[in-house]
């Protein structure tokens, strides 16, 4: 039987006779010759284990994918633009019975949407509180975009809110607010009285 030394011996060295020339004592000190068939068997087992390990670690399997990119969502812009925003429409000083004053403002539905606009009384402050000047003054609100159209008219203190209707995107309308001091409502006790009314224009996108 052909034998193969394993591990391989240095060239020029024979089994049991180290190159140093000192003869080894006993069979235990002599490198054992491993049969070629055993080496081949070990090599095959190693290859099989290596292949098995590769398969087990890779975890390879079939897979396929597809994608739907750029699903994009954007919100629009919507702004109620008030030409007198933050300021007053009317500032009347020294109002006398029988006198009326008017102020104009422009309202624009700015943005991507149509909107329903409204006007709300945010509060009245009378000084003195009683008698209150707001109970004597009258207020009228007109849409003067085209021919004047009265939208609301009455005693200032009774105004709560007013729906201005639906605006298309970008539409502009003009409003005239008129405050009058009816002669019939005048009393000496209202001399020097003041009233402040805060109005809010708002819109809801449609």
């Amino acid at each position, binding site marked *: 039987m052909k034998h193969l030394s394993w591990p391989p011996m240095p060239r020029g060295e024979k089994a049991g006779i180290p190159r140093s020339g000192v003869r080894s004592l006993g069979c235990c000190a002599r490198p054992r010759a491993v049969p070629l068939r055993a080496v081949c068997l070990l090599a095959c087992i190693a290859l099989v284990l290596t292949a098995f390990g590769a398969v087990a670690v890779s975890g390879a*399997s*079939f*897979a*396929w*994918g*597809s*994608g*739907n*990119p*750029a*699903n*994009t*969502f*954007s*919100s*629009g*812009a*919507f702004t109620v633009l008030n030409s007198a925003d933050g300021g007053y429409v009317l500032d009347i000083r020294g109002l006398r019975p029988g006198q009326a004053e008017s102020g104009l403002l422009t309202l624009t539905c700015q943005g*991507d*949407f149509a909107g329903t606009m409204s006007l709300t009384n945010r509060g009245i402050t009378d000084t003195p509180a009683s008698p209150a000047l707001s109970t004597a003054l009258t207020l009228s609100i007109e849409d003067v975009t085209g021919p004047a159209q009265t939208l609301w008219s009455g005693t200032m203190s009774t105004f709560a809110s007013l729906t201005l209707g639906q605006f298309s995107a970008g539409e502009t309308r003009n409003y005239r607010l008129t405050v009058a001091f009816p002669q019939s409502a005048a009393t000496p006790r209202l001399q020097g009285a003041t009233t402040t009314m805060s109005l809010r224009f708002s819109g809801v*996108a449609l």
Partner: protein
Amino acid sequence: MSRKQRLIRRKRRTRLILGLAVAILAIAASTVVGSGAVFTSASANPTNVFTAGNLHHTNSKDGSAILTASPMKPGDTAQGTVTIANDGDLAGTFSLATSALSDTAGTHGGNLSDVLQLQIVDQTTSTAIYSGAINTVGTIAAGTFAAGDSHTYQFTVTFPDGGTPGSATTGDNAYKSSSMSVQFDWNEVQ
């Protein structure tokens, strides 16, 4: 030559002939025996073919969006559908995930993905496979499709109406003029 010598020669010749005959018979016999001939029979099964299966699906909108919506406002919804078909020859387990989510904040700083809601319904089985925020989808199991199966999914994106905002920059107003984008990824494994 004497008669005795002729008899001896004839006997030798006879023995030689007999020896040759025996040798020839022996050779013939050994040939028969040596051939080892026996009755035999064989069959074969050739062309045992093994072909790997093909795991594949089609996406009716592959490479493009399922739905887009602009401009949206509170209360709006957008819908789109996509059909996923297993056109391979193996059953496949499908899942859906999102990627590449990006936000562009609006003028008041709100990210639209924080408010949009997504619902995905498998119209083939009338089953909702997801309902929730668009930015928390994660990975959704869509089920196992046999070869040849197809499922149509309806995507619905909703911008919930949060009511009247407290100011011009809070509530739903925070999301004015904002936008977001997201990708839907379909994955199939055996």
